[in-house]
């Protein structure tokens, strides 16, 4: 598999080596006023339309062209397009600051035409979120939320109302790789999923890959959500923040050394608990219920060729009842990165990444006091290299060594307690990967993005590792010494995407991808709970594997102002995980005996039309899809709809800028109800009315629909100070969307049963936030 690929690579490179002498233009592109590096900004040569490139995650670009006179065009969404004439007689560095479009003064379409990247690029199944647009999308309680906004894209479905969990192309919510500055965020939600862990103030760039995953990403089956934090303003100090209904936030940024280094610190905290403090209800009075998070980042550019970045995130949820119990859970991540430019073609990034998720549950009552903890810790060393080969190849290759430590559960109790001390063995493992990928612009019509990722899972001792029979009894039990190899898995993951441009405005694309997953979330609840438990692939659990093929037609209208696409996909899933009835997952040494394994398939059609520019902008996304699972023990081994199966899913987002001060926005969603299991009969057991079931997920919740509106009022312009108000109404027509349907003995008619629908936000929920900025 590797050999022919290398051969192709060598062959194509030697061809370009024979081409005429090229010179290289390289550098970084940043925001002119803040020095913030721009990710994915495009650079093209007017005279050589196919010689375009885009900046990488660090704002770096490199492209080449033969000796000559050229006009370089630098562009980035939300920024003025800049043209620069150059005489290219030797390789040169061009570092450029792009001015942001002043949204207050300019609402007309820029005279520079938007580019047709979405048509020309071989990348498919990818979406880059525009942070300015996110800020205008109305959300629950006015808390701007990346995770909720991405569920408005086709192929991405919300796990439910008041839930930041999301399903991508039929994948489960633990099959999304969520990265914050390269660190895995295991539990991306606060407060059982009502809010995401990402404070949008601190976020610079969000990319979602739902298919066509480049080979530099791996480890999860269905998607990659790559989030990059702001670097901080390296020109001047600013303080900004907001006061909202649920939380307040503040961000401080500024230069460490002007134009060379900067820092950014952003924090947010909720304050519902202060309302509890003044509540007359004694139960509420003694309870604590809040979350906070802090994002911090600093960078320093030693010279044009060397830069260091340090960033971190820390977040915590706290929930407790006075003298009774307390619990807290949260993520922390840390990333140290070193960029080095070996020469104007070879860019290197070395990262050392730390990530941790933990929870603590404590009972304070003397007769049953205990403290239960669980955590997962990752240390990841990554080396990523990018090489611009001629003007047709951008090569990416690298290595990744990721060490997992999972402490599944640990209970400590004092002697008076009715609980025993109990500790579940820790698990250790490495997830290592090597990858190579090439973006090959064959000619001005055909582009390939192809690569290969080799992933290895190494489960190592110390510990006792058991295997189980179908009934969950221990078959074999073996002790391993520290560092001893318990189980290894190797997987080759080919990644291939291509685009063929039919004309300037339209293209067809196709892709095939294999992804594997070696870390699995065990949770038999539908939403994110603090007690999320992770396990690695082991002697009982095989790596999950997904193969996805997709094709698409991309068409732009009105000089690329309107983008349209249709994508279709089919996915085969192997080694999917479900739980036995009555599975006990918490603090269980034999947790792997509680699992059953099966397969799945997902397919769908996605329509997307987006107007990116102008006074009125927004998008419409529609997905028609099916997701089915197959387990021997469920539904007699035939396919049944997965919980995340949703036939129709529609999102409409509209943003209208009325004048310099007022912007209005609105979103509408419609979705088929989740697949659920309803009773098909009832009987009595132990004096209780009990329901009987005949098929898994054989029914549907009623469909969901909701309209939200928002408005932003920009304050009057001041030289050093700016403020704005954001208003919103969630669920404008107060629709009672089904959250859950339960079955019980009737409360009104004796000796009968009834079905009860619970809706959590069945009424209009207004919100108001005041934002400020000093500079």
């Amino acid at each position, binding site marked *: 598999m590797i050999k022919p690929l290398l051969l192709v690579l060598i062959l194509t490179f030697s061809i370009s080596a024979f081409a005429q002498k090229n010179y290289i233009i390289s550098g970084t592109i940043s925001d002119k006023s803040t020095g913030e590096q721009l990710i994915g900004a495009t650079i093209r040569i007017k005279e050589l339309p196919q010689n375009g490139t885009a900046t990488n995650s660090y704002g770096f670009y490199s492209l080449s062209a033969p000796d000559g006179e050229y006009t370089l065009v630098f562009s980035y969404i939300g920024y003025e397009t800049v043209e620069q004439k150059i005489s290219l007689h030797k390789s040169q560095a061009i570092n450029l600051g792009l001015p942001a479009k002043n949204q207050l003064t300019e609402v007309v379409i820029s005279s520079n035409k938007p580019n047709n990247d979405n048509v020309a690029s071989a990348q498919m199944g990818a979406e880059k979120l525009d942070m300015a647009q996110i800020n205008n999308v109305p959300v629950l309680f006015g808390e701007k939320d990346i995770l909720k906004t991405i569920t408005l894209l086709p192929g991405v479905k919300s796990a439910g109302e008041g839930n930041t969990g999301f399903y991508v192309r039929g994948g489960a919510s633990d099959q999304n790789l969520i990265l914050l500055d390269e660190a895995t965020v295991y539990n991306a939600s606060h407060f059982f999923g009502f809010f995401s862990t990402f404070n949008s103030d601190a976020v610079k760039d969000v990319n979602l890959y739902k298919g066509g995953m480049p080979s530099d990403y791996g480890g999860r089956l269905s998607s990659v959500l790559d989030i990059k934090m702001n670097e901080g303003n390296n020109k001047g100090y600013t303080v900004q923040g907001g006061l909202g209904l649920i939380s307040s936030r503040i961000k401080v940024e500024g230069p460490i050394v002007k134009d060379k280094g900067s820092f950014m610190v952003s924090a947010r905290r909720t304050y519902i608990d202060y309302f509890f403090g003044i509540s007359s209800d004694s139960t509420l009075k003694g309870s604590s219920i809040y979350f906070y998070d802090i994002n911090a980042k600093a960078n320093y550019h030693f010279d044009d060729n060397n830069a260091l970045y340090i960033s971190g995130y820390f977040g915590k949820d706290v929930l407790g009842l006075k003298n009774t119990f307390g619990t807290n859970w949260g993520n922390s991540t840390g990333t140290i990165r070193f960029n080095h430019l070996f020469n104007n073609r070879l860019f290197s990034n070395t990262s050392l990444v730390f990530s941790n998720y933990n929870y603590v549950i404590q009972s304070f009552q003397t007769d049953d006091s205990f403290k239960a903890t669980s955590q997962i810790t990752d240390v990841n060393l990554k080396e990523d290299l990018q090489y611009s080969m001629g003007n047709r190849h951008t090569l990416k290759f690298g290595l990744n060594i990721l060490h997992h430590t999972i402490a599944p559960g640990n209970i400590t109790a004092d002697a008076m307690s009715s609980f025993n001390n109990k500790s579940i063995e820790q698990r250790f493992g490495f997830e290592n990967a090597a990858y190579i990928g090439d973006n090959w612009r064959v000619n001005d019509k055909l582009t390939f993005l192809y690569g290969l990722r080799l992933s290895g899972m190494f489960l190592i001792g110390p510990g006792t590792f058991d295997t189980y029979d179908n009934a969950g009894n221990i078959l074999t039990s073996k002790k391993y010494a520290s560092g001893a190899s318990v189980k290894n898995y190797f997987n080759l993951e080919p990644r291939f995407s291509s685009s063929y441009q039919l004309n300037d405005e339209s293209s067809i694309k196709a892709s095939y991808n294999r992804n594997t997953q070696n870390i699995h979330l065990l949770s038999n609840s539908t939403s994110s709970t603090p007690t999320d438990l992770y396990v690695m692939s082991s002697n009982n659990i095989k790596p999950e594997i997904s193969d996805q093929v997709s094709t698409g037609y991309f068409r732009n209208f009105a000089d690329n102002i309107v983008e349209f696409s249709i994508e279709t996909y089919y996915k085969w899933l192997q080694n999917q995980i479900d739980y036995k009835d009555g599975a006990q997952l918490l603090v269980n040494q034999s947790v792997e005996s509680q699992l059953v394994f099966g397969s799945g398939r997902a397919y769908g059609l996605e329509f997307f039309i987006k107007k990116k520019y102008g006074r009125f902008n927004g998008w419409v996304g529609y997905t028609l899809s099916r997701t089915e699972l197959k387990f021997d023990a469920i539904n007699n081994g035939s396919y049944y709809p997965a919980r995340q199966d949703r036939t129709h899913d529609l999102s409409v987002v509209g943003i209208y800028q009325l004048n310099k001060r007022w912007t209005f926005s609105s979103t509408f969603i419609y979705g088929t109800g989740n697949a659920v299991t309803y009773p098909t009969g009832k009987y009595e057991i132990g004096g209780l009315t009990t329901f009987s079931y005949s098929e898994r997920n054989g029914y549907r919740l009623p469909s969901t629909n909701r309209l939200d509106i928002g408005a932003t009022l920009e304050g009057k312009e001041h030289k050093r100070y700016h403020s704005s108000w954001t208003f919103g109404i969630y669920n404008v027509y107060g629709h009672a969307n089904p959250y859950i349907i*339960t079955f019980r003995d009737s409360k009104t008619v004796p000796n009968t049963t009834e079905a009860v629908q*619970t809706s959590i936000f069945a009424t209009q929920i207004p919100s108001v936030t005041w934002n400020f900025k000093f500079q």
Partner: protein
Amino acid sequence: MKKIKYWFSALYVIFIMASCTKVIDLKLGDKTGELVIEGNITNVRAPQYITLSRNVPFTNANTYPPVTGAIVSVTDALANFRQFTEGPPGTYSIGRLTGQPGNTYTLQVTTNGKTYSAVSVMPAPVKLDSITSVINDFKRGNNLRDISVNYLDPVGVANQYRFTLSVNGVQVKRVFTYDDEFINGKYVNLELVQNDIDIHPGDTATVEMQCIDKPIYTYWYTLMQQQFNGPGGGITPSNPPTNITPVTLGYFSAHTTQSKSIIVR
């Protein structure tokens, strides 16, 4: 641990102040007429009952047609064979059987030409020390009580328990089942947390404690998991795994039993 889970759900509910519930009409499937077997053998010298019925559509009244004319027997490990006789329709009983802890009982039911069997082992009894009433932590303002059961879990052996709670003679419609995974060998004060019936001072509370075997624990635990409608709607419901073969609804449990009553203070 179980109580913590309940608190999670409860606090979560406080947060969702805008939530609302309504009774709705649903078109549900009808897979009924299936045999339901509920069999219990206890260590108390009293009649032992096996009841046979059939499940009914969701929209029917909660009355279940008895299965009459079946042949029902229980055999123990010493090959003592006992035939049960039908009293009221669908209820099969024997008056002379006192179950012995440690003994294995095999139920056999033949009806409509099909024979069902189930095996259950009666565990050793654990003494129910006392039951007490404690202040309900969650609704402190309302002067409500919870009932706590107190017993010493035997060290070194795996025990499983099921409790039933009645308030003024009305059964609380909840499953309470626990094992000793976290409490082995400890003196246990276990609150039977529930929200079905409000318990006030002056009420009479009665608790039955059953010591059950592992498969029956899994049966009840599955039912108990399904009654938590916490964040996101809990787990996907299914028929709990039965110890009856071929598979049908219900269970057969050989267990020890003891009861205590208190006036709630």
